[in-house]
């Protein structure tokens, strides 16, 4: 089949007050092609996608779609042209059915146009799902589906507009490997049907599996378009960050203390966790690996008293401690850094100072409950310097910081509270490749200063790079603890799938 161009963007620029978000960017997409756009946060990927889907207007440049010059002036216009976008955060209504979600705003109606024609709607959805080979029930409520299935609903919705171009923004960020494979199968179906897919992902190892070409953006500039078959992940990364980054790094050997600071015995919870026991040593990074749903976050939340335990004991420096609520955990010196910083870690609408002292407010107040703002401000300024949080001042609102700097604010909060045990849940989720390195260095530094770290991560290279020892979980149980020197990706995956077929 001769490649026919579906879409081409040339010389697209977009300026926001004070910043050139996109400068002379090129991109093109053929029928039946999956073309990845990658780059760090702030590289301009989302700006480009928003221009393509009509949310932003470009300043200069030309968009040719199916041979015609077009001006995508609004999301509605994009839909009419046949350009659909599936956002990372899914936009579905959980209490409506699959069919109702797919055809929202375009419902079939009975004669007279007053009453809905559900039979017709469900039939149309059923046909569409069959066409895409998706095993979904049109009448099921979307809220009852897994995230992966919800994503399939979004894809069906995009296809239902008879779109030619489907943009997927980080579609695999919350999928398990099996679900990712299922998604790739759907993408291949779309390819076979001649659709063009624009694929945005942070997971570089996926690019080999699914994409035909890769376009790299950096700081709003077009860097290069590569044929996937002729490139490698290290090359892509070095183009993204403008320098070389080692993917298969392991930690420098650290002197191992045998002092156990935290001993967990037989933790179970209502749903998932079964008899989890482990030791955490002083100054070590204990990685927690496992598939999505293995119970790692649940373990952390049960440990700090955020969710109830049905059994289990926790010992701190050999003494048993009762942890019934997060405030007990904090008192015991255990800080939890959630994978969802915005929801469980930060006060986004408040400034850095407020966020950093949040756990230590009693320490910054006198006996009458009045705040001592001066010592707080100086501690916060020190923390900003020490963790190199990039911000004009400690009064900056946290919502204006990048993901990496937000993560550092959460770290600063726990260091200010003097926590000796830190539980990092996906410490680099949503953080740029460049800033990841910095977080890694910070974790290593904290460990070498004697902090004990539990690091939950779904990224095996990250687990292998950071952990002294690796605990692997599967279906709520701890299936093994491996020394880093004995570990590799295969071994971890074996433990992580122990109870699965």
């Amino acid at each position, binding site marked *: 089949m001769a490649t026919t161009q579906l879409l081409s963007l040339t010389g697209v620029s977009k300026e*926001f007050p004070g910043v050139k978000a996109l400068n002379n960017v090129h991109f093109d997409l053929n029928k039946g092609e999956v073309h990845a756009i990658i780059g760090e946060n702030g590289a301009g990927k989302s700006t480009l996608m928003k221009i393509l889907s009509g949310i932003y207007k470009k300043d200069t440049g030309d968009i040719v779609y199916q041979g015609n010059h077009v001006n995508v002036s609004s999301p509605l216009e994009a839909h009419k042209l046949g350009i659909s976008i599936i956002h990372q955060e899914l936009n579905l209504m959980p209490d409506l059915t699959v069919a109702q979600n797919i055809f929202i705003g375009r419902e079939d109606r009975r004669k007279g146009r007053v009453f809905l024609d559900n039979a017709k709607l469900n039939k149309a959805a059923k046909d569409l799902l069959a066409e895409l080979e998706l095993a979904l029930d049109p009448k099921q409520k979307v809220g009852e589906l897994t995230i992966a299935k919800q994503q399939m609903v979004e894809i069906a919705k995009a296809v239902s507009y008879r779109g030619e171009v489907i943009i997927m923004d980080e579609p695999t960020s919350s999928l398990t490997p099996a679900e990712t494979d299922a998604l790739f199968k759907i993408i291949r179906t779309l390819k076979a049907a001649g659709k063009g897919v624009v694929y945005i992902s942070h997971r570089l190892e996926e690019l080999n599996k699914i994409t035909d070409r890769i376009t790299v953006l950096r700081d709003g500039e077009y860097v290069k378009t590569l044929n996937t078959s002729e490139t490698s992940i290290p090359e892509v990364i070095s183009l993204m960050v403008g320098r070389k980054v080692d993917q298969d790094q392991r930690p420098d050997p650290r002197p191992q203390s045998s002092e156990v600071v935290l001993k967990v015995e037989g933790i179970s919870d209502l749903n998932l966790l079964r008899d989890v026991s482990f030791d955490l040593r002083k100054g070590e990074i204990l990685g927690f690996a496992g598939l999505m749903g293995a119970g790692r976050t649940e373990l952390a939340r049960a440990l700090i008293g955020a969710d109830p335990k049905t059994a289990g004991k926790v010992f701190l420096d050999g003494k048993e401690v009762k942890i019934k609520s*997060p405030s007990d955990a904090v008192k015991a010196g255990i800080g*939890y850094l959630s994978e969802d910083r915005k929801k469980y870690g930060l006060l986004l609408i408040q400034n850095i100072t407020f966020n950093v002292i949040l756990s230590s407010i009693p320490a910054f107040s006198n006996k009458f409950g009045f705040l001592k703002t001066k010592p707080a401000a100086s501690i916060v300024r020190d923390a900003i310097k020490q963790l190199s949080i990039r911000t004009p001042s400690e009064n900056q609102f946290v919502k204006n910081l990048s993901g990496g700097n937000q993560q550092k604010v959460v770290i600063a909060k726990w260091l200010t509270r003097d926590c000796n045990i830190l539980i990092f849940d996906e410490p680099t989720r949503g953080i740029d490749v460049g800033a990841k390195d910095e977080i890694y260095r910070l974790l290593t530094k904290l460990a070498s200063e004697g902090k004990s770290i539990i690091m939950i991560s779904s990224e095996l290279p990250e687990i292998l790079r950071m952990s002294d020892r690796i605990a692997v979980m599967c279906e709520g149980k701890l299936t093994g603890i491996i020394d880093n020197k004995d570990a590799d990706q295969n071994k971890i995956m074996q433990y992580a799938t122990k109870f699965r077929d």
Partner: protein
Amino acid sequence: MSKEVKAVEGEEVGGNRLRAFAKREIGRVLALGSLVVIFIFFTIMRPVFASWENVSGGILMSTTVTGLLAIGTTFVIITGGIDLSIGTATALVAIIVGKTVMALNLGVAGGMLVGVIVGGLIGVVNGLLITILKLPPFIATLATMKAAQGLALIVSDLKPVLFTTDVKGWDSIAQGNLIPKIPNGVLILFVGAVIAAIILNKTVLGRYTFAIGSNEAATKLSGVKVNNWLVAIYGLGGLYVGMAAVVLTSRLGSARPDLGLGYELEAIAAVIIGGTSLLGGKGTISGTIIGALIMSVLINGLRILELQQEWQYVVVGAVIVLAVWGDNVRRRRAGEIS
């Protein structure tokens, strides 16, 4: 990305402190500006409007009760909650104060203490319903609103309680003049506002009020005993309800079981006009006072213009829409919300 850079620029410009201050406080500056404009408008229409007699006895005095209620409920709204019970709780506290003062001959100080304690207890009940039974604040306080309404009628036996002249000086709680020309009720409102502003901005309780409203889950995970603080915050709101009830009875010389319903919405309107976000995490006491004054100035001015009471309500409704819509437009332009 664009936002990030814009904010950074904003901070750089912030080297000019005055401009940074104006930018940060623009919401309150605009609210105060509207108050002044409305005031000038009525003064031009009827010069008597600006007489001290009208300003102190008419406008400021009529702000005392809803003003005190609004101050207390500002804390609750900053936590992201709401308190619908403050109106009928005012009636219940007023009746209880009246009954106890008359029966036990408690005097002024004792009566005030009873009011504040009973008000505080009602607030604590709200806090417990919200934290222990985990009822949404709207439902919990709707329930106490109805219960307080009923209890006020039951305790009073459907009759108003008169503060006879036996209770020396009860009328001077609101109407006396510790400071010449300034009614004590206005003084109480002013002192109450200053104390609230200090608590909100300078103390641990105030800081946790903002933290809970910004992100309750993150605050809890940071080791803050959110439930205890919420009970304290609703309790604090209740103390202001108690004070409001005392001032109300002093102004009227009686406690009426049916007087109070509807005050809660006036207080909430004042808080919102004053720029406190119903979503929580943001708000000021000075804004609330400005909001309460805008409402009283409007009502008083419209009354002097002899607009029928029915139409006064309509105007107040329109002003709430205008104030909040205007604030939204401004914040959207400033990129604070999308």
